[in-house]
């Protein structure tokens, strides 16, 4: 049921304070634009942010830095592992 892939916001329509204004973001999914509803998203997105989407509704906005932080943490973990391996080999 859950789609893990966040999609990049390329256009925003509607007013964040007006539920009746048709709150919609257009996202880019592998070159295809797609509309997603913003009624329940946790943070109103800006262009270039990413959205996690579930059944046509954005449920979470993340900026590219947030994603990169995660990658950096995982890289660091990987580096630590390699360093530990090197120690083991020396021992």
């Amino acid at each position, binding site marked *: *049921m859950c789609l893990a892939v966040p999609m990049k916001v390329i256009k925003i329509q509607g007013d964040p304070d007006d539920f009746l204004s048709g709150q919609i973001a257009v996202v880019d999914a592998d070159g295809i634009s797609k509309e997603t509803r913003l009624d*329940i998203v946790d943070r109103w997105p800006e262009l270039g942010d990413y959205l996690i989407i579930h059944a*046509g509704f954005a449920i979470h906005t993340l900026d590219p830095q947030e994603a990169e932080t995660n990658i950096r943490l995982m890289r660091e973990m990987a580096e630590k*592992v390699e360093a530990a391996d090197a120690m083991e080999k020396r021992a």
Partner: protein
Amino acid sequence: MKYLDEFRDQALAEPLLKELRRSVIKPFRVMEVCGTHTMSIFRSGLRTLLPEGITLISGPGCPVCVTSAAHIDAILAMAALPNTRIALFGDLFRVPGSSGLSLANASSQGAKVDIVYSPMDSLELARKYPDDLIVFLGVGFETTTPGIAATIMAAKNNSIDNFVVFSTHKTMPPPLLALLDDPELQIDGLLCPGHVSTIIGAGAYQPLADKYKLACVVGGFEPADILQALILMARQIGKGEARVENAYTRAVRWEGNSRAQQMVDTIFKPADMEWRGLGVIPESGLAIREEYSHYDAEKRLNIKLTPAEEPKGCRCGEILKGKEVPSQCPLFGKRCTPGNPIGPCMVSSEGTCAAFYKYM
């Protein structure tokens, strides 16, 4: 989407696997609650790569699988009514009710059934078919419910009259509490669902960590995400700790998504709910509030649930509780296959039986 590829990167997964092997100091049993986790673990081959000390148990987190036969029977009864059109997420289409027949059978016999991607699509159907009452089948957990609540709100705001929701919505913490009270189920850690947690927040698992001394780690769906979550869990268990950790910070906050929570709370209220295999669990479901009863299929169509027998021989119930694996079911791979499913765990693409059949 460059960074996404990096989460799937095999080169990233290998060092994480090494670190996991190093982190497992004592063997532990972990329940992966979410059906999407179950599928990701199988599809990526993680199940066979994990260190020996880790035993994975699949939990009750596939929404179609836990939909009771009584609910499927009620859905089939609605599909048979004149001027009624069923709108649903595709997975439910082939789940048989107590008679052995499914919506797929009903559809081939003339019932009006539409598979939709979003609940909002059912409002389009309502405009397109003004003489039909569109019944959207609300099946899902905390991730799905806010969008359905927003759809009911949109129907009201746009004065769409010929649209109702059949609510079988379920919430995740109550069945986990029920399962963990069962002395037969021995687990040390909980791999908490990713996008359910986006809505309810990582903090929702604190009572489980406190009461049952469980290492609760929220994880994303990519193999690297799952490995990272298991590393944190192994370290906690190795140190004898039991707390909530969040390994999916790019999508999950401690307090969750309050806008979505408010939307759900406006439209729905807690209700007792029947789960396949687990029976009725108090306040584990969501019913539509009185103020919105015009959009409640049970009220508009006067639907009553009647107790129904699960398919004979089917072990879905025990499998959903993590007590049995599919190969222990006498029907598995013989009478029950993805082409001819008897129980819901084989129907859903996220069901444990479907995963075992496809990947084991």
